């Protein structure tokens, strides 16, 4: 180290050396999308190796990702890792019609139409505020049971979710789509990193807290009445899943997930 150069200036200079630069990726976007798929599949499978229970990590349908191909069955692009392949036993439902408001088994008082989408809504559709009540602390365990039961069937997923989330669920169950909720696994320990009011959750290094997004997009009441559950390995933030739930007249429903 040059004796006449302050250590800090010396370190600053060397850290700016162009040798730290790396060549750009010619296929950057495709590469990132493949990695995103692997993360989702990995999140779905997290916990099996450690004996954990249902890791119903959310897998956003490829059709919903920015720029993703939309033709059926094209969920996996060329060159993708085998681990990103859609499971061989992917369920196919020839008719995935969303029940109308008030349809049998889906009473309107529990599954009302979504609220109007605000211009700056960044979470998709917002839940209808009618019948919402704060999710109490005593609901933590039932909320977790809801998540554990996701992925059994299309109709079951609809029943466990708010109507505002149904379009994404439907996309996940479409032939060729990537399931949002993988099939439930053997019961065991679920690595829950957080379970509490949305407004109480703060992630040190995550994106803007979901609470800000929900407040801006869906209003303060929805934000106040939303319960958040974060699951996944603590040391692998890239594969953690975030679930938002609400209580409508005593029914716990998933209304968003990432």
């Amino acid at each position, binding site marked *: 180290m040059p004796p006449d150069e302050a250590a800090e200036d010396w370190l600053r200079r060397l850290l700016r050396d162009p040798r730290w630069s790396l060549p750009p*990726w010619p296929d*950057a976007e495709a590469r990132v999308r493949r990695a995103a798929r692997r993360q989702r599949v990995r999140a779905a499978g997290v916990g099996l190796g450690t004996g954990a229970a249902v890791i119903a990590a959310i897998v956003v349908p490829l059709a919903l990702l920015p720029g993703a191909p939309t033709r059926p069955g094209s969920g996996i692009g060329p060159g993708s890792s085998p681990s990103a392949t859609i499971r061989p036993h992917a369920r196919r439902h020839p008719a995935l019609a969303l029940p109308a408001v008030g349809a049998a088994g889906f009473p309107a008082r529990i599954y009302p139409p979504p609220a109007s989408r605000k211009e700056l809504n960044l979470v998709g559709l917002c839940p209808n505020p009618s019948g919402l009540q704060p999710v109490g602390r005593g609901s933590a365990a039932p909320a977790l049971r809801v998540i554990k039961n996701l992925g059994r069937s299309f109709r079951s997923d609809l029943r466990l979710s708010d109507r505002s989330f149904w379009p994404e669920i439907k996309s996940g169950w479409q032939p060729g789509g990537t399931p949002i909720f993988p099939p439930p696994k053997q019961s065991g320990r679920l690595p829950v990193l957080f379970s509490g009011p949305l407004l109480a959750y703060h992630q040190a290094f995550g*994106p803007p807290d979901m609470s800000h997004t929900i407040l801006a997009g869906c209003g303060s009441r929805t934000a106040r009445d939303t319960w958040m559950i974060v699951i996944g390995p603590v040391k692998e*933030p*890239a594969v953690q899943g975030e679930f938002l739930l609400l209580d409508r007249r005593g029914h716990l429903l998933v209304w968003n997930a990432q």
Partner: protein
Amino acid sequence: MPDTERGGDSFSEFAAEALPGLLRFGHALTGSRQEAEELVQDALARCLRRWRRVSVDDPVAYARRVMVNTQVTGWRRWGARVQLGDVPEAAAEDAKLVRREEWDALRQALARLPRGQRVVLVLRYLDDLPDSSIAALLGCRLGTVRSRASRGLAALRPLMTAGLTGGTGGGDVHATG
């Protein structure tokens, strides 16, 4: 439903623009090209999965936060896989060779630092982040950031000197932190 086409364009633009800086940052953070590329790739993938939220604020800062915190939590182990370049023979007259020696010595020296010190030094002296911002990013106290920086600099000096004089050869390097 989200406007996927618009979202796709904005993420593509963001990724193309941010990639060189993120790769450079990751390389300084990890000391390994392979590790850096994996770190950046995973951080960008996470950005993509949460793009609707991430795009609202500062997606570059978010990606860097993911990279830093992934390093700090030990998800990626650096030390054992640092690719150490050959240190050329000293040629004091050749300014370029001297600089290459310095750079290689720094890579080796950083590899030997505890992870927390390494991250603080990179954030402070590559990104010029104030200590308060570093503390917020890492979720630690301001005093912790300063002590890590101080210890890191103190540890770096003899390592750098040894590196320049060939006192510590190549081979596996293991982070101790």
